[in-house]
């Protein structure tokens, strides 16, 4: 196989987010082995790979949850270093985790504002402005076309799809640049899966880049503009979704096809 089969399209010179040669090992396991990743403004880019390819580790490094052993992360061409999720957030990067990272006993409004509460009266007292948070939550869900029967019900009482929507709405409400979605449809039924894909398109239409981590090839081809493939801790291929086939993607994931020799 040769590079010619999956040509890389023309792109703006400066990527929104770029990872170069990231490495990360856990004991003897090399989770990232010189992994690279590129996301351009306003696109949906899918990050695919087999189990253990390093997708989750890569996402965690790019969203500030873990620090890479070596390598470089650049935002708009400027090298950055994330020591925690807040650093990543400060650059407009939000993540929808696979486990959603919601507090089940708190309501949707509280979860939407978790760690970013709004206060009333004399701010140093940190008295929660529940009314305002509720108002903004309702607005945020409406904005995303999400129907929640009650933003004051504990999240644990919501359905899987509704919980997913809460997590997505939270990311959308704060992301100014880029949202990572780690297997957002893995736990969902068919109808809810469609809704999530709609959400992804809607987010992209607001000019926010979406990085979709997924196993589901048809889904990836349906929603992504571009696809990057990880295998054994490094990027092995890049495709334009419109020109790629499922066979090519699977080939790249399993090592049958390589379009990129090194990161």
């Amino acid at each position, binding site marked *: 196989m040769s590079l010619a089969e999956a040509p890389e399209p023309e792109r703006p010179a400066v990527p929104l987010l770029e990872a170069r040669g990231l490495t990360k090992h856990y004991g003897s396991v090399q989770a990232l082995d010189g992994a690279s990743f590129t996301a351009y403004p306003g696109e949906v880019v899918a990050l695919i790979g087999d189990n253990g390819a390093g997708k989750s580790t890569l996402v965690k490094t790019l969203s500030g*949850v873990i620090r890479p052993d070596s390598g470089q992360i650049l935002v708009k061409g400027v090298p950055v270093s994330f020591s*925690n*999720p*807040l650093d990543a*957030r400060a650059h407009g990067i939000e*993540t929808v*985790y696979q*486990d*959603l*990272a*919601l*507090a*089940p*006993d*708190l309501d949707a409004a*509280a979860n939407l504002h*978790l*760690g*970013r*509460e709004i*206060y009333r009266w004399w701010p140093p*007292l*940190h*008295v*929660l402005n*529940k009314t305002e948070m509720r108002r903004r939550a309702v607005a945020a869900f409406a904005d995303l076309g999400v129907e929640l*029967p*009650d933003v004051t019900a*504990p999240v*644990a*009482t*919501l*359905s899987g799809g509704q919980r997913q929507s809460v997590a997505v709405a939270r990311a959308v409400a704060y992301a100014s640049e880029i949202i990572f979605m780690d297997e957002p449809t893995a736990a969902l039924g068919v109808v809810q899966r469609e809704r999530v894909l709609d959400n992804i398109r809607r987010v992209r239409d607001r000019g926010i880049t979406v990085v979709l981590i997924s196993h589901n090839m048809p889904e990836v081809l349906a929603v992504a503009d571009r696809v990057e493939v990880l295998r054994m801790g490094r990027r092995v291929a890049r495709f334009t979704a419109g020109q790629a086939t499922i066979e090519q993607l699977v080939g790249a994931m399993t090592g049958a096809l390589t379009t990129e020799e090194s990161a």
Partner: protein
Amino acid sequence: MTRLAPEVPARALARSPQLVRRLLAAGETWVFAALIILMAIFTGLAPGKFLTLNDLSLNAQTTAPILLMAIGETFVIITAGIDLSVGFVLVLCGVVAGEYYLSNGGPDAGAGTIWVGAILGIATGAAFGALQGIAVAKLKIPPLIATLMGLGVAEGLSYLITGGSDLRSVPNALINSIGTGGIGGVQWLIIISFLATLVFGLILAFTRFGRYTYAIGSNPEAALRAGIKVDRHLIKVYALSGLLAGVAGILNLGYFSTTTISGHPLDNLTVITAVVIGGASLFGGRGSMLGTFLGVFIPELLATGLIIVGVNQYWQYILTGLVLGAAVYLDQIRRRLRERA
């Protein structure tokens, strides 16, 4: 098909069952119901005798230290933790204050000395709690073990400092004011413990401190990823528990006019029982100060009620145990129902 008028009536219809559902789901509702049923039974069995004002105030007085410790324990349990050390920290703080009074005038000590001693005792409690918090948050020692360890340390220190015999040189001014005095017929013990309940109830329900307490108990990983400083918050929560045990220690010192070194071996279990009866979940994320407040008085009410209706008062322990079991069982059912939804 008739068309429903838009929005408003439909929503109003939907709201009332929602309110009922929420009431049923709230921990306090069940405690309230239990309390009212108990009161009704005792009042029915002994009309005119049960719940005279005198009973109530005596109850509140002896329960003030328990209530104070239960406030702190509520925060701890909502973080999915537990603090077994409270009764022993109470004693230690009383001992620290007592030692200070002993070497600074004893029974004749003035207000200034009393304040310094009280602050020393309370600070001891807060520092002790903070250390336990560090053991839980930083060293990742399970709360049960961390505070069991703290329990041993606090008890040992109390005996070491006093040489094993209670300190009795408590300032008279402390005994006459905080210990037994009051304003307008209401004892200081009641004023202080009820006021603390109110203040910390408001903090739990309406401030960032309370919100983070629930969030950490509900999903610590989510709290961490949301940027909440989970370790620091846990340390604060355990420090608060120690601090309130310290306040309870000073009140205890004033009320009994001695350090009561061996007098509080079961306070921790009494306190945990009250908090759990009050609807707090041992799994974290749930609980309220109102529930705890009611939970503290249920065993008291049982005891008083049983005495008044002439039943052997030791039934109180059996009944309290059963109520505790029922409270936890209810929590389990609620959890299961919720997961299914």
